[in-house]
């Protein structure tokens, strides 16, 4: 595309230069000629007019002189001073440049004449003719005047004057000079035009190229044909250089991602919406690029990540070692390392000092580049997955143990019954054990199911009217035997009238079972467990109070965590899934209430289950 445009524009400018130039010269020459002719004609006309006006002025001048002279001659003649006439005539003739100036008898002898006056009479004859008249003859070159002068009574003399009225000689020379000067001027102009035209052609071509480039936005269009003149070559060199720079810049932009630019800034923005951190490291493990998530996970801030040594951000030598090997090109396959020691030296300590240090997974892969090693690292926060994995593993171990105990009891008593089938007392005892153990199994399974429902987000409460008096009767029944077995004093402090509340009966029963079973389990023999119900306005409170082993304050929140079991040696000997309290609190919260724990180590614990009764509860109570 580019080369094609370039070609057409070049041929275009070439055609312009060859096709327009002769016409232009011809027009210029013709124009010069016309102007010169007009100027010459004008000057000639001016000269003619000047000559004519000068001729007229000369005639006037001579006529005036003649009239004046006639008066003077008349005076001299009247005075009889004829001898003074030659001098007068000579003076006037010299002053006014007259060719002839004389006084004579008409058609006869001369009496006085300007100049030497040879042959002049010097006297006035007695007999003089009369009837002479004043005459003027104005020719192209000569003006002649004749004026009669009375000489006493005898007759009239005639004053004859002639003078040249032709243009002076330099007029003719000027008339000849003008065309010569003009001719020389035109020739000089044409020569100058020839000299300038070649340069003007190049400038014209550049101008047209600039016009064209405005429309085409293509560097190639700026090139002009070198036939257009001397400026074309340096111009083309400049344009060529600019074009090369432009292509180089475009090439660089296209081949180097991560630079500021249209596509790459979009790419950077896209990387910033990833929840996984992305790092690009050079061979010396310096950060070349870090997206938002990587910056947050490793440094907690975005600025100043570029060119930071990764070793200052990650303290774990295992991670650094793996990445170093890759950066140096020794390792070429994918490497994945998990580390809980993140952040810079000081920061790592701070983070690991936290209750649960974060675990980051670094997955690294070499990026193939000829020159040197570049490593791309994906950083993921896998803390929650780790915690969940550990918990699940712990749960499986616990659950297996929990399930095994009742199953073993059931199998043993069943075997005992089979072996000793006639012993009625033995059979009754075995059936009791089997019954209670299968209820325990049922509860464990219900717990596990509920937990998995919470896990899947499908645990829902189905509200109905719950008759609390019935529920407490069941609880009393279920735990009396268990408390007696452990020699624990189980006390129910219930108000005389228990309300009917809105809630999920099965879930509430499950939660309260867990709370009471826990209290009995963690209270040593001889202790007391009190279940106190309180019907306050807006909420129903059930306190489960024991004087058992208690929970340390730093563990009081943790006991509600899934699979968490207190780090107390006395607890380790007791079985449990670590699900009971989690489940109880979730159920309380699903009902819009909560469980509050007050406990003191070695003194006992109080779990308070708060159940809102306003709104739904109020209606149930009215019913």
């Amino acid at each position: 595309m580019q080369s094609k445009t370039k070609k057409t524009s070049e041929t275009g400018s070439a055609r312009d230069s060859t096709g327009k130039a002769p016409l232009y010269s011809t027009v210029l020459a013709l124009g010069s000629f016309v102007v010169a002719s007009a100027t010459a004609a004008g000057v000639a006309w001016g000269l003619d007019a000047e000559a004519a006006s000068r001729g007229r002025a000369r005639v006037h001048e001579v006529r005036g002189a003649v009239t004046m002279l006639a008066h003077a001659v008349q005076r001299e003649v009247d005075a009889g001073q004829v001898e003074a006439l030659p001098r007068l005539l000579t003076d006037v003739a010299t002053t006014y440049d007259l060719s002839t100036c004389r006084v004579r008898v008409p058609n006869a002898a001369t009496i006085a004449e300007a100049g030497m006056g040879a042959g002049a009479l010097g006297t006035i004859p007695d007999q003089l003719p009369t009837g002479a008249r004043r005459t003027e003859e104005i020719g192209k070159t000569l003006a002649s005047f004749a004026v009669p002068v009375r000489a006493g009574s005898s007759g009239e003399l005639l004053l004859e004057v002639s003078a040249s009225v032709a243009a002076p000689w330099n007029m003719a020379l000027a008339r000849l000079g003008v065309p010569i000067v003009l001719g020389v001027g035109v020739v000089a102009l044409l020569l100058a035009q020839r000299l300038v035209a070649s340069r003007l052609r190049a400038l014209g071509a550049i101008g047209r190229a600039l016009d064209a480039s405005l429309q085409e936005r293509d560097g190639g269009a700026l090139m002009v044909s070198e036939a257009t003149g001397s400026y074309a070559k340096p111009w083309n060199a400049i344009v060529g250089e600019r074009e090369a720079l432009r292509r180089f810049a475009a090439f660089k932009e296209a081949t180097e991602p991560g630079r500021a630019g249209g596509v790459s800034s979009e790419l950077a923005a896209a990387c910033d919406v990833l929840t996984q951190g992305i790092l690009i490291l050079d061979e010396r493990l310096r950060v070349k690029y870090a997206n938002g998530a990587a910056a947050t996970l490793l440094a907690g801030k975005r600025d100043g990540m570029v060119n930071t040594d990764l070793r200052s951000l990650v303290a774990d030598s295992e991670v650094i070692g793996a990445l170093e090997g890759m950066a140096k090109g020794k390792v070429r396959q994918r490497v994945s390392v998990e580390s809980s020691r993140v952040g810079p030296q000081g920061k790592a300590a701070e983070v690991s000092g936290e209750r649960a240090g974060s675990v980051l997974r670094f997955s690294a892969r070499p990026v193939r580049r000829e020159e040197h090693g570049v490593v791309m690292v994906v950083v993921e926060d896998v803390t929650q997955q780790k915690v969940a994995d550990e918990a699940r593993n712990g749960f499986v171990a616990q659950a297996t143990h929990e399930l095994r105990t009742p199953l073993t009891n059931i199998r043993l008593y069943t075997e005992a019954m089979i072996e000793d089938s006639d012993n009625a007392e033995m059979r009754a005892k075995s059936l009791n054990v089997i019954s209670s153990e299968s209820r325990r199994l049922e509860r464990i399974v219900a717990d596990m199911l509920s937990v998995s429902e919470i896990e899947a987000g499908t645990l829902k409460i189905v509200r109905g009217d719950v008759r609390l008096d019935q529920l407490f009767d069941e609880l009393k029944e279920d735990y009396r035997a268990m408390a007696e077995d452990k020699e624990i004093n189980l006390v129910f402090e219930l108000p005389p009238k228990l309300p009917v509340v809105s809630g999920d009966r099965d879930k509430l029963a499950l939660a309260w079972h867990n709370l009471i079973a826990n209290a009995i389990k963690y209270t040593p023999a001889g202790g007391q467990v009190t279940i106190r119900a309180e019907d306050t306005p807006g909420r129903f409170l059930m306190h489960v109070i024991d004087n058992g082993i208690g929970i340390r304050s730093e563990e009081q929140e943790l006991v509600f965590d899934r699979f968490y079991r207190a780090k107390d040696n006395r607890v380790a000997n007791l079985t449990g899934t670590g699900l009971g309290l989690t489940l109880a609190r979730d159920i309380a919260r699903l009902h819009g209430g909560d469980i509050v724990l007050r406990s003191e180590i070695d003194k006992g614990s109080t779990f308070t289950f708060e159940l809102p009764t306003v709104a739904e509860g109020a209606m149930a109570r009215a019913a």
Partner: protein
Amino acid sequence: MDIGEQRFGAVTVLRPVGSLSLEEVTQFKSSLADVMVKSLGRVVVDASGISYVDSRGLEVLVEASDGLARSGRALRLCGVNELLREVLDLTELAERFELYEDANSAVRSFL
């Protein structure tokens, strides 16, 4: 203002109780920022205890979410009550957050 802090595994659930407005918001803001740093952003705000929220309160929530947005995430809110829901809808800020029904599902979203 009472701010409950509960850990679900590696996730911290903050449950401010009371009105999230001018006077009380500073305390909430600092504890949110604190938890945010400590747990690398694994935070859920349980809004079920929020009885009232004003512009300052909203601002704190949006700021926290914008901070997380720099690493491609958003603030997770759960138990958003009718009032807060309406405020978020009216101010068209709801899409700046990830909303969950309860803390459990919000916590699960970190897996």
